[in-house]
Every structure is written in structure tokens, then in C-alpha cells.
């Protein structure tokens, strides 16, 4: 009986492990394909592959409009990431230091912008910023809009991190005569630094890769995804593969560093 069980377990496990493998092939396939074709000299992304080339990357470097959109995206993502992390930290720290009766309600309110489809958020912000605030389409609009869903995201990450910092430590600091600001600066901030860095990096990529909202509100200052969208509408261009490969590798690296800080243990 036990032997039979073991045999069946071994067989089932092997099938499941193979399934994991296949699932990861499926998940990484689009990324691999873009990278392969970005280095392929053929104009059309079809098989069989032709010679190895880096000419599409060189061509990118000559496209000043594209480079401009990269610059726009970097400005937006960096600003959004900074504002979101500050707002998220302030909110998370406040939630921790006072027992709010409606805490669950507040958290639900914070989760709402993360669950609403970006199309709705984009339309709402387009109407609000353009027609009611008369803020002409600009990078500022994109920054404001992206912060709407990035700030709550940062709040949730930092809140999870702050939970690991024991409250007794904070009290000890006060007992030793540290003021509230000094405690935050010298105890809380260093202890939840990994959470802050993770929040900053993850919100950076969220903003950097966001397309729909930016498309609606960016106007004549397109961000990179908006620019890529226009390129895609214009037919097949091998340079899209090159910029795609760069974006994939860039985003995944930032995400990996973020994940590293997210998983870091506190000694608090």
C-alpha cells in the first residue's frame, strides 16, 4: 500500500514538475521572441532566422523622437516614484501609530485605484484634468495620474514592512529621550529602508510601463509606451523589437532589485 502510494506520488510529481517547466516556457516566450528578433537582420519577424545584427539598436539611437519619449518616461517615472514613496510612507506610518477605527474602510479606499481598469481611470483623469482643471496635456498630467495608483501601492508595501519593526523599539527610543522626528529619522527610516527602496523601484516600473492613462493625458509629450504604440500602428518596424528588448531587460532588472529588497529580512 505504502509502496504503491509512493510510486504514484513520484509519477504525479514528475508530471507536475514538467507542467511548471512548460508554464514558464509559455510565460517567458514573448520576452525571448522579442530579444531574438531584435538581433535578427531580417526586416520581418519570421522564421527562418537570418544573420545576427545590432543594427536595429544603432537605428534606435538615431531616432531623436524616440529618445525624447524615453526621457519623458524617465522623468515621469522618477517623479511618480518619489512622490508615491513619500506619500505611501507618511500614510503607512500614520496608520501604524494610531488605531484608526475605520482602518479597513480606509484600506479599501486605498485599494480601489489599484483595482479599477486603467481605461476608466484614464478617461476620468482626462476629463478632470483637461476640461475642469484646464491643465493642458503634459507630463505633469501623467505624473498626477500615475501617482493615483502608485501611491496606494507604495503604502501597502511599506505598511507590510513597518509591521516587522517592533513598537517596543520605538518606545525605547522615546524613553531614551529621542523626539518623534528623531525617532523616525534614526530608527524607523533605516529599519524600513528596504521597504522604501522596494516601493520606489516597483512604482517606478509601474509608471514607466503604463500605457493607457499616459496615452490619454500625455498629449504632445508622449511617454515611451505611447511612442511605441504609435510605432506599432505605423506597421512592422524591426526597431520596435530592439526598444522592446531594452524595455524588457530594464524593467526586469529594476523589478529584480526591488524583489531583493522586498525579501530582505529586518533585524528590527
Amino acid at each position, binding site marked *: 500500500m505504502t509502496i504503491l502510494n509512493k510510486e504514484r506520488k513520484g509519477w504525479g510529481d514528475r508530471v507536475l514538475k514538467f507542467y511548471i517547466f512548460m508554464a514558464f516556457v509559455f510565460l517567458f516566450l*514573448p520576452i525571448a521572441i522579442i530579444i531574438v528578433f531584435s538581433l535578427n537582420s531580417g526586416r520581418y519577424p519570421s522564421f527562418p532566422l537570418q544573420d545576427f545584427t545590432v543594427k536595429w539598436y544603432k537605428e534606435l539611437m538615431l531616432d531623436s523622437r524616440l529618445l525624447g519619449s524615453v526621457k519623458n518616461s524617465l522623468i515621469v517615472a522618477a517623479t511618480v516614484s518619489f512622490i508615491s514613496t513619500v506619500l505611501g510612507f507618511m*500614510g503607512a506610518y500614520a496608520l501604524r501609530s*494610531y*488605531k484608526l477605527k475605520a482602518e479597513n474602510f*480606509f484600506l479599501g479606499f486605498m485599494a480601489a485605484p489599484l483595482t479599477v481598469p486603467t481605461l476608466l*481611470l484614464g478617461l476620468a483623469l482626462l476629463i478632470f484634468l483637461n476640461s475642469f482643471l484646464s491643465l493642458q496635456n503634459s507630463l505633469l498630467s501623467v505624473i498626477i495620474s500615475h501617482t*493615483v495608483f502608485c501611491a496606494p501601492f507604495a503604502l501597502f508595501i511599506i505598511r507590510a514592512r513597518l509591521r516587522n519593526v517592533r*513598537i517596543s523599539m520605538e518606545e525605547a527610543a522615546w524613553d531614551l529621550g529621542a523626539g518623534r522626528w528623531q525617532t523616525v529619522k534614526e530608527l524607523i527610516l533605516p529599519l524600513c529602508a528596504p521597504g522604501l527602496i522596494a516601493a520606489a523601484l516597483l512604482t517606478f516600473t509601474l509608471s514607466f*510601463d503604463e500605457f493607457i492613462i499616459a496615452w490619454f493625458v500625455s498629449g504632445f509629450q508622449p511617454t515611451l509606451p505611447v511612442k511605441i504604440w504609435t510605432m506599432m500602428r505605423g506597421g512592422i518596424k524591426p526597431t520596435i523589437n530592439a526598444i522592446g528588448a531594452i524595455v524588457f531587460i530594464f524593467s526586469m532588472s529594476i523589478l529584480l532589485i526591488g524583489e531583493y529588497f522586498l525579501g530582505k529580512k529586518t533585524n528590527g
Partner: protein
Amino acid sequence: MPDQSSFKIEKMVKFRNFPPIRFFVGILPISLWEIIFFMLPVLLIFIVSFLIVKELRLVFQWTLANYTDIFSKTPYWVAYVRSFRLALTAVVLSAVLAYPLAYAIAFVVPARFRRLLMVAMILPFWTNYLIRAYSWQIILANNGLFNEILKVLNIIETPISILYTHVATEVGFTHFYMVLMTMLLYSSMDAINRNLMEAARDLGAGKLRTFFEIIFPLSLPGLIVGSIFVFIMSFGDFVAPSILGGGKKPVFTQMVVDEIQGTVNLSMASALAVIMVVTILIVLILFLRRVESITAGSSTG
């Protein structure tokens, strides 16, 4: 152990009696941001949906015309039903594909590899959605990887057209939302007390019985929350249907974008958006009720 925790609670209570003025200083900036730039704009959608647009500008003149238009014109309804069906299919597909994956990671993979696998899974999920959809366009094209493989395997002679049909849309949806579903399922499976499973085995329950009586019921909350998310996000997705599905059979979001980018009729777009919001809320309420009944049932039973 109990001593320590009660001590901790006492400290917390003491700690949390601080004057709330500081609390407000911390909580206010993010709350104001969300009230001004999230709640207000979303409320505006409702108001604008009852206004009219003249010469590309919103005019404050109340009307029900947008709604009567939507309800009387079939293209809107066809697109709505299409979106609904595509979203439901995405829920089923991603649940079917994600369930064995989450199970395998939670119960077959050794503990030290689990986090690694989950991080590896999030990587492609987190990258640019637009470029991923573009990549699927390349893979599913008539001379793309998928058709080439089928040709090499002698399964087909002429390529099958998948690109610019909603089969391709579903591929895009599934690729994206399967990860979300796996993460939620995994977190509810990982939380299952492994002693419970061992106890079941010791009492003579086979693998199947352990699965159906312990693992499956306890993974249901993850499955339901995952389904809600997948439904909302695929119903509200514009990128996959337009890049992979093409424009011949537009989905609801494509109708909305047409009103925004094409005719620049923001009040019509708002009315369509209101219908989307209402749909999402109904689905949310129906599903969440189900979660409540399940969690209530498992705690009493």
C-alpha cells in the same frame, strides 16, 4: 507565549493613544491625493455621462441621450456581450491553467525554490504589457513561431489564422492573468497548515481525498478573488483586444476608446464607462457574497 502577546497588546494600546494630530499629518496627503485625483474624477464621469458634447466641448445641458443611444443601438450591445464572454473565458482559462501550477509550486517544489519560482513568474508579468502583446502578435502571425512549429510537426499545411481573432485575444489575456491567478491561488494554498494534510494522510485519506476535502476547499477564497480580478481586468482591457484581436469585432473597451480618440465624444465615452463600472460592481458584489458564504461555511462546518 501568551504572556508575551498580551504584553505586546498592552504596549500597542498605550502606544496608540497618541494625539491624532500627527496621525492626520501623515494620512492627509495621500487621502487628499486620492480624493481629488481619484474620487472626484470618477464621480465626474457619472455627471459628464448626462451631459452633451457640442463642437468637441462639453456643454452643461442635461440629457439622457447618451444612455438611450447605447440601449437602442445594437453594436454597443454586441460589443458588451462579446467583452463579457471573453472575460468569462479568460477567468476559466486562467483558473484551469493556474490551478495545477499553484498546486505544484506549493506542494511539489521544495520549500527553498518556492520564492524563487514566484519571483521568476512575476518578472514577465510586470514588464511592459504593450510590448508583450506585440510579441504575441509576432508569435501568432501566419508566418509566426506557432504556425511554423505546427508545420514542422506536419499537423497543418496552410497556416491557421489566429492573429486578429479573439482566440489571439484570449492567448494574451491568459498569458497575463494566469500569473495573477497563480499568485492568489498559491498564497491561499501556501497558508494551508501542512499538519492538517499529514493528519488526513495518517487517518488513511488518499491523495485525492486529501485534495478534495482539504486543499480544494481551503484554496477556494484564492480562486474566487483571482476570478474577480481576472474578470475585472480582462473586461476592462483595451490593449490585448486591439493589438491581438484586431478591430473587426470590437469589444466594449474599443468602443470607449473610439469615443475618446476618434469622435472625441467624452460624454458618450463616460456613459459607456458608467456601464462598465456598474458591470464591475455587480460582479464584485455577486462574487464577494460567495466568498463570504464560503468562509462562513468553513468556520462553522
